């Protein structure tokens, strides 16, 4: 560590430049992971707020909530308990005079079941009457207020916002919660035998043998949300590539420095300084660079997070951040392996010749 620190202190410009690169790479990785986590969260906020363990869908819906319908007959056969609730989902455009149109997901609930009962309004109150709705907090940031009258799509019926609620997003769209009767108006079916889109269960073992329905675990259901897996995979690739880039940057930098310092290392080896001591110097330098770069990146990320507008889905998962930090440190150590190997193989005879 002695040599590592002394060299860094002596060669401030070089090491500041490489640390700046690591800062930028780690900053980019942290922001991307925050966006990945934020977007993933906006896909699944509502599902998680319902404490979903399993979902019952129409067997032929291709694990897609918007394609699924459950008939009244099927619903009756499922024998729901307090841990299950039927939901009706419809994609809508929310309109209100003097307000921007907002694409949203309408979720129809049975007010006697657990999701409606547990719905907490962060401001205002839960819906009680047929023309009342509770909407996601995002509407508030878009200028909507309690008491505002809204319409869905081109329908003429008006509904009143009576409350705002947090963590109410599905597939990145804000949710409008209301009674199931509204959903039935939004998605009219011939004969009106349809009861809802899906049955959400707080227990994993809810799997009634009802013809035409199939139970899915919550993680599987989430993985099949439109675009969810593709989006997460894209972010994972970007983060992975940045990790590799950080490895290459640190490896190239340390390799060039090592090549320049080979005569010095050879002299030290001739004087009897153990090779392991010199190898540890390069590993320590790499660790110092990575840790300093990661701390800088984390600070920039914290500043960015505090300044970023409300609508940007930036959310950090401490476990993921810890894993990324660990991954970057490991990349630094791997990056130092090549120059370390070069040092380990130095022939001290080279300083004398002969």
């Amino acid at each position, binding site marked *: 560590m002695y040599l590592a620190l002394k*060299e860094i202190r002596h060669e401030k410009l070089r090491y500041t430049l490489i640390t700046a690169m690591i800062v930028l790479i780690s900053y980019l990785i942290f922001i991307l992971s925050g966006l990945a986590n934020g977007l993933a969260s906006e896909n699944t906020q509502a599902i998680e707020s319902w404490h979903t363990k399993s979902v019952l869908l129409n067997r032929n819906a291709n694990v897609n909530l918007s394609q699924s319908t459950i008939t009244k007959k099927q619903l009756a056969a499922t024998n729901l308990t307090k841990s299950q609730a039927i939901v009706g989902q419809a994609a809508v455009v929310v309109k209100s005079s003097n307000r921007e149109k907002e694409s949203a997901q309408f979720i129809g609930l049975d007010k006697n079941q657990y999701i409606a009962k547990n719905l907490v309004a962060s401001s205002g109150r839960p819906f009680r009457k047929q023309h009342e709705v509770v909407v996601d907090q995002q509407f508030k940031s878009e200028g909507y207020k309690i008491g505002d009258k809204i319409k869905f799509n081109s329908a003429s019926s008006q509904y009143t916002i009576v409350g705002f609620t947090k963590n109410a997003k599905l597939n990145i769209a804000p949710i409008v919660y209301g009674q199931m009767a509204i959903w039935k108006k939004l998605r009219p079916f011939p004969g009106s035998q349809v009861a809802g889109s899906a049955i959400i269960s707080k227990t994993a073992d809810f799997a009634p043998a009802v013809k035409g329905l199939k139970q899915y675990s919550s993680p599987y259901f989430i993985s099949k949300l439109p675009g969810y897996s593709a989006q997460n995979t894209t972010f994972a690739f970007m983060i992975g590539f940045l990790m590799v880039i950080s490895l290459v940057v640190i490896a190239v930098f340390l390799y060039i420095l090592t090549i320049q310092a080979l*005569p*010095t290392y050879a*002299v030290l080896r*001739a004087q*009897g*300084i*153990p090779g392991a001591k010199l190898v540890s110097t390069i590993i320590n330098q790499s660790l110092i660079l990575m840790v300093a770069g990661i701390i800088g990146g984390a600070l920039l990320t914290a500043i960015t997070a505090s300044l970023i507008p409300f609508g940007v889905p930036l959310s950090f998962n401490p476990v993921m951040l810890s894993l990324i930090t660990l991954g970057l440190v490991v990349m630094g150590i791997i990056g130092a392996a090549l120059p370390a190997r070069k040092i380990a193989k130095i022939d001290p005879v080279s300083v004398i*010749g002969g």
Partner: protein
Amino acid sequence: MSAIELKNVNHYFGSGSSLVHVLQDINFSANKGQLVLIIGPSGSGKSTFLTIAGGLRTASSGDVSIEGQSINQLSRKQSDQLRLAHIGFVLQSYALVPYLKVSEQLAFVDRIKPEGNLNAEELKELFAQLGIEDLVNKYPGQLSGGQRQRVAIARAVYTNPEVILADEPSAALDSDRVVKIGQLFKELAEQRDKAIVVVTHDTRLMPFADKVYEIMDGKMSLQQKL
């Protein structure tokens, strides 16, 4: 007992038709308190001799001993320890770490070999003898060539080795400086009881030597001092 001794040392490079017999039946010894020169032109085998005597390379045959201890069969780690504790090198490249101040060059040695080095008083005396007491807080890049060489000598003496091996220490020095370096090596050998072996092609150092060996085409012979 000689501080350093080579008996019947042979060394070859290459193999088959390209085999070169670089050192041929070398017999050499230097005692503590002696300054011994090895004189020879370029390509005569001087540097190969130095690497074998310094434990950096193993001779093809023959025996090399430091303080009576054979170093032929040492492991890499043992060889490192031998060089660190018993042999000081003064190399043409001056052997200084560019990002360590003069005092830190020695502090670094203390971290690797904490015991047996010169104490503070002895170091002060050595610095005064070498005329570098005002340079302790300078980096090698801030020193002249002569100052760097004297710091390198201090670095070599600091670990208190029995043997100091110097490679062309007077290269590119004018005659006045050659005299100074010759006198300095002579003083260090006598006052500090070291065997100092200087490999050089510079005959201007001969007046200061206790023994002079000539090496020519891989063969070494002891010269009669004038």
